[in-house]
């Protein structure tokens, strides 16, 4: 390809780091599940099923083994026959249709025995350093029954029913990173296949999807015997694994500012590189147009009942139509076509449309984009020392730059500090409270960095400009976190959300969507302003069909 001489800068954090835009992000080439499948295909990973001890009633255990060039990982699955009244997606649930762990290696019978005693209990059990993830899933009852009944009768299920839901089971948590005794990320972070973020979790979900398909076929077979058929592979591909996500995920992008910066910065860098391409080839334009068309078809199938999302989907569909129309009349040989498209989109399209365009623009350029996957992780784990020698004046300048939007706010105003994030004693479920309507304030979690930054800014007024910040912190250690966060922005411009995370009108799903889009999720379906359903791996090849030809653009075939 030909790259232009012009330097297109990355987009301004003031534009990108708004909650409304973060809540409009879409999957892209840099999404974690796509990175995983590209690697597995390129390296020829093999998935086998050494154990499948499941009874006719769907109760039992299974092991799926993924073997790469250097090591193997095993998803250990426990399935049960859950009474309907026990089924809940919330953190406070105590039983699930299926529970899972990703074992680091190949489990012995003793391992399986130990895991049998703990994994179905989830948070109430313990796992160990040989376990990399802990997860659970519940059936989509409606679709489950439909699919099994159809297959048992020798029929394929109705594609329309499949598309309505998009999955047979949905995970309600996928824990990694040392939780409940699992291995810390540090244990695996140096392995090439685990270097990109959340690869253990993405591998877990990929194998769960295979198990779920196998389980459905198995139960249909048990029910229908000779009449039963297997699920048509094309229909099987349309099934992703759903996920039900709530407030537990929202604090992540606040609590890991450098990591989140890296994700955003890599995507923005990729976008800037593509915009700098002076003369796209005909082949590259064709890839873009083809995928734009497929994206339009996919989005037409996204369903939601929630008013927020109904409106967003209508806007997105309109945007995609407008984009297609604009493209059909544009001069495709004009220099810097992509940059011109982005510029046009900033006036013509909603944030969702702009972000779908941004994601689509990356697709024809694996050579410019895919290498950035190595920059997504945060190897220093935010353990950099605080720079105590920075002066009050220097710190003030940073605060006035990053929090220019926040400093004029009155933080005692009821609308400005309306919310308080807290953790309930009830199974430690994260919740969002209304500060003036319930006793949440006494338990408030530190999830309002803008308010903290403003408090710090106010304190600095009492100190001479050339005072080292170490003096201020010696007197007021409460501001350490705010100072650290401000200092991160010197090298992590996208570390801070430029919106008030405790405002009356704040929507936690915007935070959830940002992280989920980097996982590679599609079909965002909010159930409230703080609860969202998604699909993962919808359209993806199953392990037996995974190859470099099928590993990459499957997300557009959903």
């Amino acid at each position, binding site marked *: 390809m030909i790259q232009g001489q012009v330097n297109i800068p990355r987009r301004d954090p003031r534009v990108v780091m708004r909650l409304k835009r973060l809540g409009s992000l879409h999957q892209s080439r840099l999404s974690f599940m796509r990175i995983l499948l590209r690697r597995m295909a390129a390296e020829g990973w093999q998935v086998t099923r050494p154990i499948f001890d499941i009874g006719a009633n769907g109760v039992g255990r299974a092991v799926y083994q993924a073997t790469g060039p250097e090591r193997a990982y095993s998803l250990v699955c426990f399935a049960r026959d859950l009474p*309907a009244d026990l*089924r*809940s*997606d*919330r*953190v*406070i649930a105590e039983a699930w249709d299926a529970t899972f762990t990703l074992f680091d290696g190949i489990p012995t019978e003793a391992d399986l025995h130990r895991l049998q005693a703990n994994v179905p209990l989830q948070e109430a059990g313990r796992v*160990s*350093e040989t376990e990399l993830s802990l997860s659970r899933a*519940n059936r*989509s*009852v*409606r679709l489950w029954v439909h699919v099994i009944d159809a297959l048992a009768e020798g029929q394929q299920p109705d594609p329309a029913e499949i598309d309505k839901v998009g999955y047979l089971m949905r995970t309600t948590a996928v824990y990694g*990173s*040392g*939780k*409940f*005794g699992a*291995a*810390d990320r*540090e*244990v695996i972070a140096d392995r090439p296949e685990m270097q990109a973020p959340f690869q253990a979790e993405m591998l877990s979900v990929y194998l769960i999807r295979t198990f779920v398909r196998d389980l459905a076929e198995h139960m249909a077979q048990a029910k229908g015997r000779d009449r039963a058929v297997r699920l048509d592979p094309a229909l099987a591909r349309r099934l992703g694994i759903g996920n039900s996500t709530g*407030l537990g995920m929202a604090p992540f992008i606040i609590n890991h500012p450098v990591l989140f910066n890296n994700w955003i910065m890599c995507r923005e860098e990729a976008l800037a590189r593509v915009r700098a391409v002076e003369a796209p080839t005909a082949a590259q334009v064709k890839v873009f147009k083809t995928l734009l068309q497929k994206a339009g078809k996919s989005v037409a199938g996204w369903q939601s*009942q*929630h008013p927020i999302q109904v409106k967003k989907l209508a806007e997105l569909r309109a945007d995609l139509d407008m984009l297609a129309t604009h493209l059909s009349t544009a001069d495709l040989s004009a220099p810097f076509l992509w940059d011109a498209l982005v510029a046009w989109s900033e006036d013509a399209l909603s944030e969702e449309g702009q972000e779908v365009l941004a994601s689509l623009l990356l697709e024809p350029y694996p050579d410019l984009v895919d290498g950035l996957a190595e920059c997504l992780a945060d190897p220093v784990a935010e*353990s950099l*020392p*605080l720079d*105590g020698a920075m002066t009050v004046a220097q710190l003030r300048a940073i605060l006035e730059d990053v929090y220019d939007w926040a400093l004029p706010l009155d933080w005692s105003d009821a609308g400005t500090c309306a919310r308080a994030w*807290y953790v*309930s*004693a*009830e199974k*430690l*479920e*994260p*919740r*969002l*409270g*209304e500060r003036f309507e319930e006793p*949440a304030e*006494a*338990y408030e979690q*530190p999830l309002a960095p803008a308010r903290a930054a403003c408090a710090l800014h106010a304190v600095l007024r009492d100190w001479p400009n050339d005072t080292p*910040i*170490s003096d201020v*912190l*010696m*007197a*007021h*250690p*409460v*501001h*350490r*976190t705010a100072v650290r966060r401000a200092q991160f922005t010197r090298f992590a411009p996208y570390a801070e959300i430029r919106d008030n995370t405790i405002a009356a009108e704040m929507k936690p799903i915007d935070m959830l969507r940002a992280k989920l889009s980097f996982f590679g999720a599609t079909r965002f379906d909010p*159930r*409230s302003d*703080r*609860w969202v*359903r998604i699909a993962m791996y919808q359209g993806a090849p199953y392990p037996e069909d995974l190859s470099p030809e099928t590993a990459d653009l499957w997300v557009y075939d959903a």
Partner: protein
Amino acid sequence: MNLSLNEVRAMARKAARGAGYDWALADEAGWACGALCEAGIDGVAALAGLLEAGGADCVGGLEVSDAVWRRGSGQICPVYAGTVLCDRRALSARVLALDGVVSPIMLLPYIRAALRGGKGPVIVTCERGRANIDAQSIYIMKDFSEVPVRVDITATEDIPPHRHASSRASPDPAAWDVLTTYAHRTYAPATEASRLRGAGGDLPDTD
């Protein structure tokens, strides 16, 4: 007991908050606790001792103008003092002492961190306790007690033995229970109203 370091840090942070530290110093307590465990030292026991001894009341007002740091006539929280030590890059070749440090073992990860960037090893001594520390290692030669003491930090030629970082923690179960109890103070009591409005969806999610 076998815990991941992440679990230890998360619990330590919540426990410190529950014991009265602000969230910023609670973060620091979590870090220090995890760093001790990584060095093969029971950071959970050290933190439990600090919290029980009222470390949260020993924050602020450190006097650092001469070679012996004090906090008026009061005791010094090691987490707070450790952050000051690092912020000020106070460990140069000269001797440094801190008078009245509660649970001084919590200071050791900060001393190690402060030696990064080419500073030589030090010996840390107090009435009950002795450690040899460089930028990589904390080597305890004589067990530290929790009683508030004067801590002396002096340069040494001795390099502590280097060991692989631990990836797990095996704390004293009673100390872990202490942290759990403090951490529980940060959880809001469960109520029906909280359960209904605080999380979950407006639309059914069991379909």
